[in-house]
């Protein structure tokens, strides 16, 4: 296999298509990762202030 790929006269269109796909997938990944961190941080802050769900409190009692 030739290590340098020849994309012909329409190389710019092919490269642009792959760049767009990579950028959109990277943006999705970043959004989901940052959103997870934000929700965890908010949940931890609430629990640190003693605000917990009833189901969590019943688990603590039985433990």
């Amino acid at each position, binding site marked *: 296999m030739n290590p340098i790929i020849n994309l012909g006269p329409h190389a710019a269109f092919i490269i642009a298509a792959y760049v767009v796909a990579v950028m959109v997938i990277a943006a999705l990944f970043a959004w989901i990762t940052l959103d*997870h961190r934000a929700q965890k941080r*908010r949940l931890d802050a609430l629990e640190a202030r003693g605000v917990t769900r009833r189901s969590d409190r019943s688990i603590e009692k039985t433990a």
Partner: protein
Amino acid sequence: MSMALLDLANPSRFLALAERLLPWLAGVTALAFAIGLHLAYGAPDDYQQGATVKIMFIHVPSAWLGMFAWALMSIAALGTLVWRHPLADVAAKAAAPIGAAFTFVCLVTGSLWGRPMWGTYWVWDARLTSVLLLFLMYLGLIALWRTVEEPSRAARAAAILTLVGAINLPIIKFSVDWWNTLHQPASVMRIGGPSIYPTILVPLLVMALAFTLLFVTLHIAAMRNEILRRRVRTLMLMQAQAAPGSRS
């Protein structure tokens, strides 16, 4: 089997399962993409379209997933309206931005493929217009979920809108058969089997598998985030009710 499904209906159990599954899913997805991209790199040029056929390896899986996500949301909509499954709305809401993103990739890569092959980025034919409509419906649904603050009210409205929008899926699929279009007819999922030569078909199917695994990974992660978001909301409401001066 039904007990396993009931277990998954519990958000806490789902979170625990998601934490265990996500690293493995991410690893398998990365492996599938490595193999798929290697095969796509080595695939021969098409005798008519030349190297632009390489755009197909991202365009077609994106199109499939844009439609698959809406089909998944339609099943979840039934789960919300009929069975009142606790995770149904979570699954639908988490799938919408991912489905929108894949539909966007489908539209942009299709335009970039169309310009050198058809001589234009866009035509208002049935296939392209119905896919654009799918993208706009995704945006509408996302806006609806963001506008209605109460999750149960938003869930019901979104479920109805999703089921109405599902009418667009067969229109997208069969638009190339029903109306005149620049877009080529189905060449993989068709009666009589695929019409693509295996040297191009195999990389396409591996890339489709990689994209599907990526969708599953992102969807489970987004569902996990949505469950956490709803927990935060519940705790903040509890905090507000417990605050001195609150009516309850």
